[in-house]
């Protein structure tokens, strides 16, 4: 496949993995990784990307078995290897960087010791303070000589991840497998870690297999991108090509679903739901959700075909489809500022953390307004206070100082002390869809509750409205009879939105409502929220850390750092020419697609 005749450091051929109960998880996967190459393995939940990546280390989760095919790392097979030989390969030929660095370090071991363990595992008797020091220097943690004596809990998230990278590099393996290494980190930290990884590749020539669901991140890192869907590779090619000229409808849809703050446009989600293990349809797995599907797509499984040298795609119609020049939905028309008095006016808000730590408060002296029908975004990293502000407005957190005025009148801190009308007109949707609905009640009951409590409807009236509300969030009415455990994340989030809409609010607070969802589902939910806002003339307070989402959804933006307001203004202005240093840093660090995409 490659033009240059260097031996690939990883060679996977026709790999298939299945559950012990028989359902296939990964099928027919073949690819190569050349020395010094960064390969991005991209997919959503259920795509099989993590399972594939772990198999490169010869590891499968309990209940999962490798069924067939070959996986060769450094010329040696990792399948059907006995424990000892496998251990020899791991860490020395192929190493591993985990997703959650906090949980991946032994809490009772100093980090110097952890690095030493990996060294000793491959070179008996090796491991001196010097070698540990140089390992830490490689990831730019060598400045403090006492650093190796620290315990994991004494490190920040970014430092912990650097330590796991140091462990993965200490024996100079030719390739490392990284499993979503920056997913749990702040954007600024993520940016630094990515730069670190690029430097390791440039200086030490280490190849990487970078597993992620975030195309924007991998666009900055990878030389080559492999897109997986339902356990199979659907597209495989040079990074720039795959992103700027995707040949597979799924890749194209993924690219379209990523909000980009430099080119704000309305988002378009992918209809339908991701295919899970055991649900693989006959024929092309993506066909049921594909805009370009035809009958033959459902009948037979398409094979991987080469479009241009080095670029493969699994689609029956790749030759006919020209995915690049499609009609793109137009960006939001920025509306003129309404002349009406503000619906929500927050002034001098101050709030503390529950544990009453003296030190800086969660929110300090924040003031802003939300006009009727406008969407205001609160942007910041974790610890910026944006969620706390949302909770104060919703009545879930009593502020220490300041006023919150709704429709001209000041409101009490706790929801219980607010009049019914205020409680009804302000509604909130939470971040975690798996915890927003009472698992013991049917979906219907969760929606009926606000109808009865806040709008004082009778039981019969309330039941009637449930169906309408579900349809408004594009769910079939019969979903009302289900329990939350039977619904997917995206569906649950829509139900949570329906529950909020049931009260007929004027202000909807969205607290990171899409952060826990797959990219394609995210776009669909955001699309829905935008529609609802237009139809119902809702005001929205949109809390997020994603600047791209802000650009696509909001009219005004507030940038928060550690509880303080750094900058505020119309979205277009702030993103194009930020005046505060923190905003500039956020914009610089935010991963985004190359200019050629979309």
């Amino acid at each position, binding site marked *: 496949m490659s033009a240059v005749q260097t031996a690939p450091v990883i060679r996977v051929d026709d790999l298939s993995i299945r559950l012990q109960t028989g359902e296939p998880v990964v099928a027919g996967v073949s690819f190569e990784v050349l020395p010094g190459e960064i390969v991005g393995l991209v997919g959503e939940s259920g795509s099989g990307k993590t399972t594939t990546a772990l198999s490169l280390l010869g590891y499968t989760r309990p209940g999962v078995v490798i069924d067939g095919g070959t996986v060769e790392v450094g010329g040696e097979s990792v399948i059907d290897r006995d424990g000892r030989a496998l251990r020899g390969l791991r*860490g020395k030929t192929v190493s591993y960087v985990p997703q959650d660095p906090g949980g991946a370090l*032994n809490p009772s071991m100093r980090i110097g010791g952890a690095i030493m*363990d*990996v060294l000793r*595992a491959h070179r008996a008797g090796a491991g001196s303070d010097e070698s540990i020091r140089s390992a830490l220097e490689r990831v730019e943690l060598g400045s403090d000589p006492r650093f190796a004596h620290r*315990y994991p*809990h*004494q490190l920040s998230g970014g430092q912990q991840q650097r330590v796991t990278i140091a462990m*993965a590099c200490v024996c100079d393996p030719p390739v490392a497998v990284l499993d979503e290494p920056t997913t749990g980190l702040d954007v600024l930290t993520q940016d*630094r870690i990515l730069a670190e990884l690029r430097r390791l590749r440039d200086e030490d020539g280490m190849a990487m297999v970078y597993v992620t669901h975030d195309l924007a991140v991998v666009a900055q890192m990878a030389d080559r991108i492999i897109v997986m869907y339902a356990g199979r590779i659907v597209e495989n090619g040079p990074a720039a090509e795959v992103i700027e000229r995707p040949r597979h409808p799924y890749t194209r849809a993924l690219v379209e679903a990523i909000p980009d703050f430099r080119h704000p446009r309305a988002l378009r989600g992918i209809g339908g739901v991701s295919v899970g293990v055991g649900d693989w349809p006959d024929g092309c797995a993506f066909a049921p959700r594909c805009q370009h599907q035809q009958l033959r797509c459902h009948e037979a499984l398409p094979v991987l075909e080469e479009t241009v040298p080095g670029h493969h795609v699994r689609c029956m119609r790749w030759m006919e489809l020209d995915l690049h020049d499609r009609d793109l939905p137009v960006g939001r028309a920025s509306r003129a500022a309404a002349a009406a008095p503000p619906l929500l006016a927050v002034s001098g808000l101050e709030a503390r953390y529950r544990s009453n730590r003296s030190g800086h408060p969660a929110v300090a002296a924040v003031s802003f307004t939300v006009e009727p029908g406008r969407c205001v975004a609160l942007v910041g990293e974790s610890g910026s206070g944006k969620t706390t502000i949302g909770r104060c407005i919703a009545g879930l957190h009593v502020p220490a100082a300041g006023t919150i005025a709704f429709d001209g009148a000041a409101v009490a801190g706790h929801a219980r002390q607010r009049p019914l009308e205020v409680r009804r007109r302000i509604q909130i949707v939470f971040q975690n869809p798996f915890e927003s609905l009472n698992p013991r009640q049917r979906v219907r009951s969760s929606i009926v509750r606000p109808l009865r409590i806040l709008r004082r409807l009778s039981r019969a009236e309330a039941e009637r409205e449930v169906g309408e509300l579900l349809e408004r969030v594009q769910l079939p009415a019969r979903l009302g009879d289900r329990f939350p455990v039977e619904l997917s994340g995206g569906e649950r989030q829509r139900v949570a939105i329906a529950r909020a809409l049931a009260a007929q609010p004027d202000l909807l607070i969205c607290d990171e409502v899409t952060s826990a969802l797959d990219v394609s589902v995210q776009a669909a939910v955001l699309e829905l929220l935008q529609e609802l806002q237009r139809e119902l003339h809702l005001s929205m307070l949109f809390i997020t850390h994603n600047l791209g989402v802000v650009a696509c959804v909001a009219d005004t933006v507030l940038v928060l750092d550690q509880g303080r307001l750094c900058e505020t203004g119309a979205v277009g202005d702030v993103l194009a020419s930020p005046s505060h240093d923190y905003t500039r840093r956020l914009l610089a660090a935010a991963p985004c697609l190359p200019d050629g995409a979309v």
Partner: protein
Amino acid sequence: MTAVAEPRAVRRETPPVLAFLGRRILGGILALFVASIVIFVALNILPGNPASVILGRNATPAAERVLTQRMHLDRPATTRYADWLGGFAHADLGISAVSLAQGQRTSVWQQISGPLKNSAILAAIAALFMIPLSIGLGVIGPIFPGKPVDHMISIFSLAAIALPEFVTGSLLIGIFFVALDWLPPVALVPPGGSPLDNPSELVLPVLTLLFASLAAGVRMVRAGMTEVLQTEYVQTARLNGVGERRVLWRYALRNALAPSVQVLAQNLQWLIGGIIITENVFAYPGIGTELVNAVQTRDVTVVQSVAMLIAVVYVVINLLADLVVMLLVPKLREPA
């Protein structure tokens, strides 16, 4: 792009270990204080004149008056409480009420010092076996999941935990004495003698004690070990090639020990409770037998002081366990 080191400042105040110890000791003293009040109230404030209850059928008004005076029951409750606590702090545990009723003055300490020693020996032997066995049997199962040894341990702990000491004891007597005649059914120790003089007497009581406490300990250590073996850091170490023996020892066991220590401390406490019953089953002259006798005869002074003594032992064991856990878990050594 240089990394920004963000060290957490370790403040130069009281070392957290000492502060932690200090807090715990204070807490322990407070708990003992409350316990003493509870004990005193339960025994002295509840309705009924202790004197008449002790005398029972011999309760003539005259005898009652004499006993009331000897037991200082005519003094107000708060004074009696203060006297008792003060005496306790000086190792003066009072005078046995029953002996007072009989016209003698046997000090409680004199009465229980022998049995106390006997109980301590029994408890020490049982603990000596229980701790290593609990840990050993507990960690083996998750290391070899699904194998026969895992199943056997699991079944054993399930069965044994369900049986109270008196059932286990009686069954053991049934097997080893009635059926096999290998071991004596009672563990009598002549006054002044030591239980170690006749070790075969100790076998069944120790076994009985072990049964119940082992089972609980093994189950919890197992659960802790299973949980630790599924953590991300164990997996990461394995995926980076660290040897299995090292992983089991330093990554799994070491982190499973901390919760295990707490469990074992709880079990030692259970041991103390089990001793009371076990001594009764085997007629072993220990502090449990003394306590039961005292309860039966309503000897409030003895019950009072013995109960307090046992509470002190409880609290001390808890304290030691907390200290060991702190040494094992570095995170706890930080200021909160």
